[in-house]
């Protein structure tokens, strides 16, 4: 890392965006105050940026405001009023919509008297026929239906006691950690765009009509995105720690 050290040495003046420099000196000042091996308590109100490792003293912003890492601009804390209740409400509706959308017919096509309709689960399991492609089927069913549903279930499990000011349920932190780890693998919104592309491809071939599940799923996509936007991870972890 001597390269880095050298670069940092010559670069401080060049990288002089005020925010960056402020962040560095602030965290440096904090560093000076700290002694390795102190009790755990003084560390409890520190927050380390997960993406650049700068350490800050956490000052919780007011509802609707955000605390941002001054070095890399990663959002650290973004509490919202009644976010917990809203997340539970959204998660419940996600669960209902997913179960409904998975079974209702999703799209149907017809041409010259022949007709076929498919549900989301059928689309996900389209590869089952031929041996090794079955693996892909399982993966698709997981990322479209099961992982979004599981994440909704987990967030209800974690948030419900927090909203009611009760102590967290057993293994709540494990549940929230799993839900966070699964976040990139929940691909409902990508599936929705895939539908649009598939529709255009088929449109020349046959007449396409939407089943009820198509509209359920469109609503679902919006809810899933909203759920992620509302969640302030820092506040949840802080609450789980109590």
């Amino acid at each position, binding site marked *: 890392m*001597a390269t880095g050290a050298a670069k940092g040495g010559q670069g401080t003046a060049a990288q002089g965006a005020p925010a960056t420099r402020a962040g*560095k000196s602030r965290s440096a000042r904090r560093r000076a105050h700290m002694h390795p091996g102190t009790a755990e308590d003084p560390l409890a109100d520190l927050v380390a940026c997960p993406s650049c490792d700068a*350490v800050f003293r956490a000052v919780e912003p007011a509802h609707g405001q955000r605390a941002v890492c001054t070095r890399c601009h990663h959002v650290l804390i973004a509490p919202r009023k009644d976010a917990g209740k809203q997340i539970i409400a959204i998660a419940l509706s996600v669960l209902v919509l997913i179960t409904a959308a998975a079974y209702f017919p999703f799209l149907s096509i017809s041409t010259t008297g022949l007709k*076929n309709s*498919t549900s989301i689960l059928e689309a996900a399991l389209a590869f089952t026929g031929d041996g090794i492609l079955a693996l892909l089927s399982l993966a698709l069913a997981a990322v479209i239906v099961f992982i979004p549903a599981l994440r909704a279930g987990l967030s209800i499990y974690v948030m419900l006691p927090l909203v009611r000011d009760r102590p967290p349920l057993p293994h709540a932190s494990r549940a929230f950690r799993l839900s966070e780890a699964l976040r990139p693998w929940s691909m409902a919104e990508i599936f929705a765009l895939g539908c649009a592309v*598939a529709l255009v491809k*088929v449109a020349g071939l046959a007449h396409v009509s939407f089943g009820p599940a198509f509209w359920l799923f469109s609503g679902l996509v919006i809810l899933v995105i909203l759920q992620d936007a509302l969640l302030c991870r820092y506040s949840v972890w802080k609450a789980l720690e109590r």
Partner: protein
Amino acid sequence: MGLVACRRCARVWPGSARRCGRCGHGLRSRDVMALQKVWALWVVGLICYIPANIYTMLETRTLVSSQTNTVIGGALELGHHGDWGVAMVILVASVGIPISKFIVIAMLAYGIRNRSFLSPERRQLMHELVEYIGRWSMIDVFVVAILSALVHLGALVSIQPGIAALFFAMSVIFTMLSAMCFDSRLIWDSMVDDLPPEIRPKSAHPQADRANKPEEGATA
């Protein structure tokens, strides 16, 4: 400063801690193997991407003919039918995004060990973009899944998935894993002058490096 941070919940712990007491996530100041993992997954992703483009993605059987399409072939055919908008969506999602992803991850990983010409802010942004956009490459696999489930009209017309879909999905998954393994904190380590010895990469001997680097920088 003798501290270690949890990447899952941002809690700070003394450097000796091995597991986060708040969320239970494993703690590690810097994963010395991280870059190797990134490169390994990157190579697997790249290898999978080749058959994904060579083999057939879709097989369309009609009464009179049977037609096979690769990823690019299918998109071009859509374009010839006049749907250039959709063709562009597919081309961007299944060719543009994966290839730029390979390039960006390689640049980021290379830039950690070597002098990078981009500022840390820029590289951080690139990493976030790659992590966010990478998932969207799956769209082509979803299209194949929807088409092959939907288009089953007896002997008249039916669409079958091809083996390329599997390779394509694997390529997307491995590059996603590769991007996740990349520890963006490594980008910022280069800005700190006094890295503690435990998070300094093994190979870096400050004296030797300091002596070598200027020449390398001059040639590059």
